[in-house]
């Protein structure tokens, strides 16, 4: 850049954007992950980069901050306040970091040095201020901690990271990012590792700071609903290329690209009634409940754990019924007792008091041998398909194992049952010989569901079955689950912290807090007329800005039972 050009950009016309990317491409070695991306972010504005995993959104954030790993190489232009960043030598770029561009990372639990106090790390950020006195710098740190809503700044200052919760750590990190008063904040999935209610508070905090301090926000997120609520404009990415860009209102009310439309349709918060036709049979079962005994009965179940001599009540006097052919959702934040509740239901733990019956058969107080007959009718699909399948087995063996264990049928019948389960979840037979590593996340979770189906169970316990998956994959899995429910009359226990998803697929809901069920009812009762403040706070955590764009009509169903494309 010629000197006089630099001068004119320095005089910085008010209309010039704060951050401008042009023809930005990033490659790791020879593998290109971002291709020709351009966008503009105005002063005091917010821009969301949205996309699924592998879309290159985090890579773009790192390229702007020049924090790519050694193998990553960015080309193109990134202008900040009129100055090109990518070509600057490292020495000249470093003053931008922290001082002018703040960074809020994804996982607060790993983003602070575990062996140094919060205070020591905060003082590093404070050293970027033009404040020569250490005592004053410390006072500024404490003031910032208070500003981000940490109610005992001195205690936080003296703590080590492992002594604080995830929400508190994210507040600390946001505080450290805004402390040197940068004009741009890059937030890379700032809430994806946090509980829903904390997520809302953190996003509120970011919005507040943006207004108070006139900071521009580059928000990286996979959550369309969050982007809809928090961003002025949106860039939709897929496989490292821009699919669509524009103001939030335009992208949401009239998405022009196929991918944006599909994403929009897949986000639970935007489509509460998407699966209405598939849920109807369940609601009919629910209406007929007075005539039948429930499939699952849980009565006054309490479970205590003793940790370091202290008694911890994980599940406290919990009771609920589930009718055959319906979905019952257990919702609550981490530590609310959801997981313990399903472990009790599966007979993996014994309750201290209370009674649990599945299909009229008592589960509690039985030996593992006696439970085998119960387990035939009761299956679990686990949260993380990336760790729940044995990586050394092929898929056929994985799905077939329950049949071998229970010695059901001849070899030929077992092979047939496996193929039928495979067809039920919409997987092609050509995948049978693959190892889990050769499958995508969605395919793996389908394998896990197929495995739970081969025994022809009546009840399937779904422990956050989609929390490790992208939204579009999540939509596929939910559709598979609901179709199977209609087809086979399955009863589901669905554990989740994602209320928008619960609203899409459950029939009845129990809200758990600190081991107790604080409220339960049909999905309509819970979502339309919540009685408890805790339930209301959970509901408020569903990004409300999204409501403007929500559809109330079910979408046309997609053809899902065709064979998946091979990844």
């Amino acid at each position: 850049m010629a000197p006089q050009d630099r001068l004119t950009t320095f005089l910085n016309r008010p209309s010039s954007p704060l951050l401008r990317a042009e023809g930005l491409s990033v490659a790791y070695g020879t593998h290109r992950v971002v291709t020709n991306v351009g966008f503009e972010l105005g002063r005091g504005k917010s821009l969301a980069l949205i996309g699924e995993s592998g879309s290159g959104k985090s890579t773009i954030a790192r390229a702007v901050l020049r924090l790519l790993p050694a193998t990553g190489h960015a080309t193109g232009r990134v202008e900040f306040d009129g100055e090109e960043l990518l070509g600057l030598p490292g020495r000249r770029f470093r003053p931008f970091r922290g001082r002018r561009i703040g960074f809020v990372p994804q996982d607060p639990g790993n983003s602070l040095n575990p062996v140094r106090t919060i205070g020591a790390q905060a003082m590093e950020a404070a050293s970027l201020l033009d404040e020569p006195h250490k005592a004053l710098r410390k006072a500024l740190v404490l003031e910032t901690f208070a500003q981000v809503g940490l109610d005992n700044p001195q205690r936080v200052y003296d703590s080590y990271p492992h002594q604080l919760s995830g929400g508190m750590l994210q507040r600390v990190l946001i505080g450290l990012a805004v402390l040197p008063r940068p004009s741009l904040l890059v937030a890379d999935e700032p809430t994806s590792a946090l509980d829903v209610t904390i997520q809302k508070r953190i996003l509120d905090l970011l919005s507040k700071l943006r207004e108070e301090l006139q900071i521009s926000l580059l928000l990286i997120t996979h959550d369309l609903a969050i982007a809809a609520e928090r961003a002025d404009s949106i860039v939709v990415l897929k496989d490292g290329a821009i699919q669509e860009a524009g103001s939030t209102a335009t992208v949401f009310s009239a998405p022009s690209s196929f991918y944006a439309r599909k994403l929009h349709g897949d986000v639970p918060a935007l489509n509460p009634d998407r699966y209405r036709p598939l849920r109807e049979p369940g609601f009919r079962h629910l209406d007929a409940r007075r005539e039948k005994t429930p499939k699952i009965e849980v009565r006054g179940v309490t479970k205590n754990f003793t940790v370091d001599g202290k008694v911890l009540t994980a599940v406290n006097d919990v009771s609920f019924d589930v009718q055959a052919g319906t979905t019952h959702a257990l919702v609550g934040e981490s530590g609310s007792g959801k997981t313990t509740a399903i472990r009790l239901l599966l007979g993996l733990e014994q309750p201290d008091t209370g009674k649990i019956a599945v299909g009229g058969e008592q589960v509690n107080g039985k030996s593992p041998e006696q439970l085998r007959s119960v387990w035939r009718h009761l299956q679990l699909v686990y949260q993380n398909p990336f760790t729940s399948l044995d990586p050394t087995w092929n898929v056929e063996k994985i799905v077939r194992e329950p049949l071998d264990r229970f010695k059901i049928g001849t070899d030929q019948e077992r092979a047939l049952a496996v193929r039928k389960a495979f067809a039920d979840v919409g997987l092609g037979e050509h995948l049978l010989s693959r190892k889990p590593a050769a499958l995508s996340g969605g395919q793996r979770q389908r394998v896990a569901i197929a495995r739970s189906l081969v025994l022809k169970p009546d009840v399937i316990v779904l422990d956050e079955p989609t929390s490790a998956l992208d939204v579009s994959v999540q939509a596929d899995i939910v559709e598979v689950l609901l179709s199977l429910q209609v087809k086979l009359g399955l009863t589901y226990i669905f554990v989740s912290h994602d209320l928008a998803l619960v609203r899409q697929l459950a029939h009845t809901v129990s809200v758990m807090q600190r081991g107790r069920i604080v409220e339960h009812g049909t999905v309509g009762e819970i979502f339309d007329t919540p009685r408890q403040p805790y339930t209301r706070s959970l509901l408020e955590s569903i990004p409300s800005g999204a409501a403007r764009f929500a559809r109330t009509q079910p979408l046309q169903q997609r053809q899902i039972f065709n064979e998946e494309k091979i990844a």
Partner: protein
Amino acid sequence: MSKAYFNYAGKRLLQAIVVILLSYVFTFVVVSILPGDPITNVLNNPQNGFTPDEIKEIIAAQGLDKPIPVQLWNAFSGFLTGDLGLSMRTNRPVATLIAEVLPSTLVLASAGLAVALLLAAIIAYGTQFLPQRFGQGLLRGFPSLFLSVPNFVIGLVLIHLFGFQLGVFRVIEPDSFWATLFAAIALGIPISAQIAEVLIANLDHESGQDYATVARGRGLSQMRLFVKHLLKPSSLPVITVVALTIGELLGGSLITETVFGRNGLGSLVQRSVSTQDLPVLQAVVSLAAVVFVVVNLIADLTYPLLDPRVKLLGTQQRRPTTADDSSLPISKAVTP
């Protein structure tokens, strides 16, 4: 320090004492109970020319006519009070023999450890800061190279090069400063390899952690990041490795002493083995066990003091959950 720490320290101390006790009993039992008792073998060997009266006298003096448990008790209580018995070869107290040579070995071992630590630190630092084209990869190969060369070879090369060729030290004065330094280098090189390996692996791991990226994003220079953030968590596991290499340091110093002609614990052991001087060997083995256990005890006791994450048994703090995020609603927290 907290009560839990003292509980932990007490337990570890007790364990250490038990280990020392067992190792003592084990060596004792191996020496005296197994058939073919080497002591009587030595005495009864006609070549040694002991008369039956002398044999009786020696056996009585060594207390070998008493029942085994009594012998064990006598020997052990002696060991605790510093009376290690009499050497069979020289008839002098074992404690005196060891005291004569111990300082020389201690000097060599600690100098060797210092060399090892310094070398490991230089190599590890280089792998983090040397640009790829200035031989960073080569530097990463050093530890495996060091490990694969036995220290007596290094010692011989050093003696030849610096003793004979360059004349930096005189080989006939093994206790001079320069001779000691080169002996320490020969001893320290293989040990530095293990420490460097751990340090490099930890530095690589830590610098890839999120917190390092975030700290870089906060505007820290590479140097500050290294000193303030990476060095401590990377060095903590080194404490354990150093404690474990103490055995090697002792064993290595025996060989190095022989190569450099130093009169230390090594040459004492060598003489005692060749003459089957069992009281000396028993004492040296037990002493080595004590040193090894004590060093590891110190390592275990310092670790919790340095790493705030280490949770001691029985002190598990409940990890805070979201329920503890008692932060004020944001509107209230805003300072006007």
